[in-house]
């Protein structure tokens, strides 16, 4: 479903993603983990046509991304890490906008919007402007919106960021259901390693733009001689804080997102 070869992205000389290669099989749940500023979001931006790679090859659903942008865009859905709602529209209008631009037929669209808004417990407030929502409510709306059209491949960039444990569980069950029922391929990032431990069939760990290890949970644990994903993660990426300039920037972004 995803094939990445020697993918590199440089921002004015700074290498955010450094010669990364990996592949994700159809129907797989794939976790892309790494410390702040490791290059996860940058990789996802390239995989989703938002950013041009400096070099390297990406194939999504069999289509080469630089040549078949439209086919590629038809193949995936995404829930962004950063805010992406229109604050001046209501919750319902945001959902409707998404359903329409993704070409979901009217009847199905209305049904799914209602189901999903009920699922994230925003149905009562569907006609309120999004700017009056709390951070967590906005996040729930973004998650719901990302699930209106059922793509073959779903990117989730820290989907549960800022959500309470109940909601996180709830959402993960839903996503796993989609994976089982529709064979939807899931590519996600998270800093809640327990989520990755429970959901992921394969895991890649990226640090400073390079993939430092990939495999199943079992393989990672064996390789690092640890017995949890968290220990494996720390043993691979070290325990130093990512407080270089990039790290703090990302941190600020995250605070911004949590406060809004």
């Amino acid at each position, binding site marked *: 479903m995803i094939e990445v070869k020697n993918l590199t992205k440089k921002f004015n000389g700074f290498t955010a993603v450094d010669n990364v290669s990996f592949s994700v099989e159809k129907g797989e749940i794939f976790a892309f983990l790494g410390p702040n500023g490791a290059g996860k979001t940058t990789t996802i*931006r390239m995989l*989703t*046509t*938002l*950013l*041009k790679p400096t070099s390297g090859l990406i194939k999504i659903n069999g289509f080469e991304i630089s040549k078949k942008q*439209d086919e590629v*865009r*038809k193949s*995936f859905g*995404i829930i*962004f890490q*950063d*805010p*992406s*709602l*229109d*604050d*001046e*529209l209501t919750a319902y*209008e945001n959902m*409707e*906008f*998404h359903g*329409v*631009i*993704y*070409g979901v037929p009217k009847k199905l669209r209305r049904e799914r919007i209602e189901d999903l808004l009920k699922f994230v417990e925003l149905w009562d407030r569907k006609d309120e402007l999004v700017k009056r929502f709390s951070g967590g409510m906005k996040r729930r709306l973004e998650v719901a919106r990302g699930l209106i059209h059922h793509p073959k491949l779903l990117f989730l960039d820290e989907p549960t960021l800022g959500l309470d444990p109940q909601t996180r569980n709830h959402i993960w069950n839903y996503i796993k259901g989609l994976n089982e029922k529709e064979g939807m391929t899931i590519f996600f990032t998270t800093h809640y390693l327990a989520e990755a431990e429970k959901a992921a069939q394969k895991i890649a760990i990226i640090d400073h733009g390079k993939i430092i290890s990939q495999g199943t949970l079992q393989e990672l644990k064996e390789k690092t001689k640890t017995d949890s994903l968290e220990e494996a993660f720390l043993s691979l990426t070290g325990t130093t804080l990512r407080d270089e300039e990039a790290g703090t920037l990302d941190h600020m972004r995250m605070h911004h997102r949590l406060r809004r």
Partner: protein
Amino acid sequence: MNAIYILWLRQLKRHFRSRARMIGSLGQPLLFLVALGFGFGPIYQRAGGGNYIQFLAPGIIAMSILFTAVFTGMEIIWDRQFGFLKETLVAPVSRFHIMAGKTLGGATVATLQGIIVFFLSMLAGFRPEYIVMLPLAFLFMFFISLLFTALGISIASLLEDMQAFPLIMNFIIMPLFFLSGALFPLQGLPKAIGVVASVNPLSYGVDGLRGTLVNGASFGLHVDFMVLGIITAILILIGSYLFSKIEV
């Protein structure tokens, strides 16, 4: 097609939902009409120009369209900063359709704005001379709107944030407005200013409005129409190209 419609609808909702934005965008033309109209009226009359409000109103309508159109086009910058642009750009919709939806949305908002200012100017004493020409005047408004929305989108595609906004305002928008014949007749101007005015697309918009509303076109209505049409087409092409290059 549906995508174009929903993008269009979004622009309209955003504009007409924000009362501050509506009032703000009507305040300026009103101020210009009243201050300039009544302020320069007597001098204009004495100089033999006739009724200044009759001359000024089409210019002020064009001004409000210019500002509204460029602003709504430049809203892309806000969309980028607040993150909504990503949502639009990953969708399986051709870039040209996105551009079309945004341009039509901005142009509709600006045209409606122009029509509102038209009625406001009637409160200030303006009287259109031929009612039958009104539809043509509205068509001109729509052309001016399209042109400058496409310009706004082109500019916005090149900018990362609003920091360059004062620059755009002072070096593009204001000169376009002041050197367009909106406020004074283009005949008998110093050569340099006349030349600048004749390459300014807004001059043809103002001229077209004046031609249809008070019968005072100096370039001629079909020249106005042709020039506006051609420049609009070119700007839409440039805008689509720049827009398709946006990375977020």
